[in-house]
């Protein structure tokens, strides 16, 4: 697959043995103590015999740590070019590594948008120079990201785009989405749609529920998402195209996705961690930190989403990293943009609110965070099979820490979980067998 490549760290050509850790690899259904041998940037063996280890083998002691394929994210807003005050490819890359990610897909909503081969190439080169997390580029679905005509999807694919999307904007033009799904079959690349009907969303700032009613906030009704999901799954069926719907946040979305999957239709879905643990009650503080998209919804939706990601109806968890600068988030709820920094808290959030409560286990969590997104995006990662790139994360599942946005690597310090104590910390992130982050 596509590697973004060079590192400015000295080439670690000696073999590396990660030992004493708990290896969790959903792609092989492995969850046991074991040793992982990495040679020349690829997984060479799990539990090699001592006699097979070269003399020069270095070791990393992963006692009390989980050893898993690095996390893969389906849509990180890296904000460069055009919005460097919010984030850069470098700062987002560092945040990703600190969050245990080894691959991220970079969204197309930059300025200029990623609708030309030159723009794709810019991001790829910048990411290569930053030598941080692997960055895969999402190209715009529509020219200029304006939702009217298809972008030059073929040329974007040739330049290295791995998927197409206008996210975080939705695709209100049904005919365009259908055409694009059809057209994309020749490239076998996925289209990502963030489902929302703009007229129904009607500039809402919070979930349209009891809390918005009491507080007098403009609401984002669930129908705005549900109708778009209905449209999406129907078009996916009609075109046999590769469509990924997400992030979703409603009971209605879950219900529809469950039903079409049971009919054998190939649609995938994702969810953001904030929709798995926080409700719209947070808006009572009127703090724009909680103005996130998809919006925080009421408890019923949170519970439904938790169940859906546990049983696999929702295939993947995506961070929803939507960084916005301090000044922008310091405003009132209407003026402040949607967004928060989430790369550095996603893994701990899932552990704290889903694994510790028994709703999920580590194997299924890593599946949703790594194996599944890698498969959906068609990029390397999500596996520790022999021969796979050695993109590995070492996780300390028991370390407690308190979220402080001001300590983030991300330029954005706005987090819905600021002040919360979470359990679970990234100890080390390796790409190609090289340590690119260490706590």
């Amino acid at each position, binding site marked *: 697959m596509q590697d973004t490549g060079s590192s400015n760290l000295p080439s670690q050509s000696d073999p590396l043995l990660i030992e004493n850790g708990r290896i969790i690899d959903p792609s092989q259904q492995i969850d046991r103590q074991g040793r992982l041998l990495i040679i020349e940037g690829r997984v060479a063996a799990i539990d090699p015999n001592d006699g097979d280890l070269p003399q020069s083998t270095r070791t990393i002691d992963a006692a009390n740590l989980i050893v898993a394929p690095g996390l893969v994210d389906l849509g990180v807003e890296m904000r460069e070019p055009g919005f460097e005050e919010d984030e850069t490819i470098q700062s987002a890359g560092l945040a990703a590594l600190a969050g245990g990610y080894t691959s991220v897909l970079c969204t197309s909503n930059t300025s200029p948008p990623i609708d030309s081969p030159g723009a794709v190439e810019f991001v790829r080169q910048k990411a290569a120079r930053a030598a941080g997390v692997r960055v895969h580029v999402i190209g715009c679905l529509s020219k200029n990201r304006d939702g009217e005509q298809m972008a030059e999807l073929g040329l974007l694919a040739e330049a290295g785009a791995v998927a197409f999307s206008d996210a975080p904007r939705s695709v209100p033009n049904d005919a365009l989405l259908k055409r694009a799904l059809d057209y994309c079959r020749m490239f076998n690349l996925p289209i990502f749609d963030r489902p929302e009907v703009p007229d129904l969303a009607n500039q809402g700032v919070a979930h349209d529920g009891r809390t918005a*009613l009491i507080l*007098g906030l403009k609401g984002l009704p669930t129908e705005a998402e549900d109708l778009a999901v209905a449209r999406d799954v129907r078009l996916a069926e009609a075109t046999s195209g590769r469509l990924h719907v997400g992030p979703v946040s409603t009971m209605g979305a879950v219900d529809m996705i469950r039903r079409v999957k049971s009919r054998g239709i190939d649609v995938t879905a994702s969810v953001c961690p904030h929709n798995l643990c926080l409700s719209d009650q947070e808006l009572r503080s009127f703090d724009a930190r909680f103005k996130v998209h998809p919006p925080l919804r009421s408890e019923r939706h949170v519970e439904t989403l938790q169940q859906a990601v546990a049983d696999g109806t929702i295939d993947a968890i995506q961070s929803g990293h939507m960084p916005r600068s301090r000044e922008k988030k310091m405003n*009132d709820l209407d*003026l402040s943009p949607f967004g928060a920094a989430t790369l550095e808290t996603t893994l701990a959030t899932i552990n704290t609110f889903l694994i510790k409560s028994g709703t999920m286990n580590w194997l299924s969590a890593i599946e949703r965070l790594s194996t599944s997104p890698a498969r959906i995006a068609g990029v390397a990662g999500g596996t520790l099979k022999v021969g796979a790139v050695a993109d590995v994360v070492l996780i300390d599942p028991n370390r407690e820490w308190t979220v402080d946005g001001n300590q983030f690597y991300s330029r954005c310090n706005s987090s819905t979980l600021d002040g919360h104590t979470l359990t679970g910390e990234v100890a080390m992130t390796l790409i190609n067998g090289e340590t690119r982050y260490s706590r």
Partner: protein
Amino acid sequence: MTNAPTATPPIIEFPKSWTRRHLLDLESLDADEITTILDTAQQLKTLTNDCKSKLPLLVGKTCANLFFENSTRTRNSFSLAAKRLGADTVEFSSSGSSVAKGETFVDTAKTIEAMGVDWVVTRHSTPGTPHLLSRELKCSVLNAGDGPHDHPTQGLLDMLTIRQHRGSIKGLTVALVGDIAHSRTARSNIWGLSKLGANVIICGPPTLVSPRWAELGFEVAHHLDDILPRCDVLNLLRIQFERQKARPFPSVHEYAALYAMNGERMRKAKDDILIMAPGPINRGVEITPEVADGPHSVILEQVNNGIAVRMAALWLLAGANQTN
């Protein structure tokens, strides 16, 4: 409080139970606090000869109006309330000010505070802005209306008016009629009245009156004529054209036919019904001239009570700030 020598007893006793430095909404106040403000307002109204004379309780203090939304009557009402009690006032409005130059509203407020003011009275189109200010400022913050969320002094002056006519609010049936969805007056009244024991009816077209109000335990009605015979008080909210993007009813003509308080409807109402409106009123839309100027209308009393309530609020908040 006053500059009188200690030998003279105070003109008015400061209620020891009052501890709030800010007045941000009625939702968070309890029944006792609401009653304290109403009692204080009534006292001050009497002591100032129906809000006409001065009473030097707040001499040497400064009240800043920080209005990000158009308003003449509320702004002037707060100004007059401050001046009647001897305080100085200063006006900031968003148009032509630093806000137009890109300053955030928090920075604007902090700048004003740095000039040495004791209260910032603020009106803004977004809910929660006074709450955010109260976390950033050391002086007292008064909410003069934050979007559709709350307008505490409006709710209080409405309740004071009802109390003056009926003695008590408990057990009265009070209907709020009109654009509930976008109305801060409606919400303030809903919280205030229900805490003091009134039966609140929320009335208007379904597009403006969400069924969720019923889930919260309030009576919801869509036909004014059905509930009219039961009402002791009607509070007629103004249809807010400036807040609505997609019209929630087909025409003003239709709205008036269904909801306007006119002579014919008055004949079906109780003999002692009180007709209220937060103003400004649209004559011919939610109320006809005959009713607005008729014997049941207490609209102008509401205006006078507004000054009393705002005097009370300024004095109580200043007292709490001094204690802390």
